[in-house]
């Protein structure tokens, strides 16, 4: 049983996501439009995504053990024919330590079920919740100054893509690390006996 599962965003999830959209770090790290929008407007917007915007935008609810909601992920700029999309995340403050599991589960869902091949990630440089500043520096392929204006400041954004080749390379290097670790443990055990 996976720790984190992904399901469709539903009407019942709307109030929780609305609350998240207005949270201070969310507003600074993604977009602050919700701070100036009323509840009805935000609700109508999310319901429209559920009922009408399947071609252009999809929201997923990311759940932990016992189907407890951890946060949300959504894809935009979807090009079904080229099999690429942009992916965004909002993890609830109480569960932010589980972000890495959420990222893995959503990437897997997009590749395994929606047949996406290239996934575009965007993170503002001040945001270290998703990746450390060093990891972001190493990971990014494009740096865009004054990409967005959130909470009164211009933000620089880092962009990078993850393709099937990247995932394979990542899996291979993880496998390699596991093998090395297993080898070291074996050597230690043999040395003791």
């Amino acid at each position, binding site marked *: 049983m996976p720790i984190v599962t992904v399901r*469709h965003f539903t009407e019942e999830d709307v109030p929780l996501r609305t609350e998240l959209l207005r949270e201070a770090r969310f507003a600074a790290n993604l977009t602050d439009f919700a701070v100036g929008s009323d509840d009805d407007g935000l609700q109508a917007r999310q319901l429209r995504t*559920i009922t009408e915007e399947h071609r252009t935008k*999809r929201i997923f609810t990311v759940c932990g053990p016992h189907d407890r909601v951890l946060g949300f992920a959504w894809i935009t700029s979807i090009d079904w024919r080229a099999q690429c999309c942009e992916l965004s995340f909002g993890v609830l403050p109480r569960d932010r330590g589980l972000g890495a599991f959420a990222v893995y589960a959503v990437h897997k869902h997009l*590749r395994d*079920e*929606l047949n996406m091949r290239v996934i575009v990630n965007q993170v503002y440089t001040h945001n270290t919740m998703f990746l450390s500043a060093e990891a972001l520096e190493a990971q990014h392929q494009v740096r865009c100054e004054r990409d967005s204006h959130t909470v009164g400041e211009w933000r620089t954004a880092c962009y990078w893509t993850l393709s099937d080749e990247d995932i394979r390379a990542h899996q291979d290097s993880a496998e390699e690390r596991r093998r090395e670790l297993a080898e070291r443990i074996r050597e230690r055990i043999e040395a003791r006996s």
Partner: protein
Amino acid sequence: MTELRPLSPAEAAQGLRRAGEAARGFLGTDPVTQNDALLVRELVRREAQVYAAGGALVGCVPNRAQPRQAYVSSTSAGPEPVRALLGHLTTYQRRTSFVALVPEAGAAAFAGAGFARTGVLPGYRYAGHAFHDVLVLVKEEPCRS
């Protein structure tokens, strides 16, 4: 004989969601990749008729180019709900030709209801990071008009 209860598109979408893995590919829909609103929209667009048949769901989509023919689906692993659907479609809609597009694993329910394998659509369906073959199963009833 299993009794059929007609479902609205919204009830059908809920039933397909509950059926989980067994509902993937049901009349060309997929609850894993489509949310309830999209399932409803797709069922309506296809003019699908969905019925509760015991604990399972069965349904059909008419072939507009051949009014005696219908595409049929079932979430059941057993043949009884399929037999009930064919009985209903033959008796009340004068259908005489039935086509089912199912993965190898889902073929038994239709074979048990008299369907014959007529072809394979290679790599027709994508799920679980792989393309899967889909079998074309057909059953013809003699025309009674």
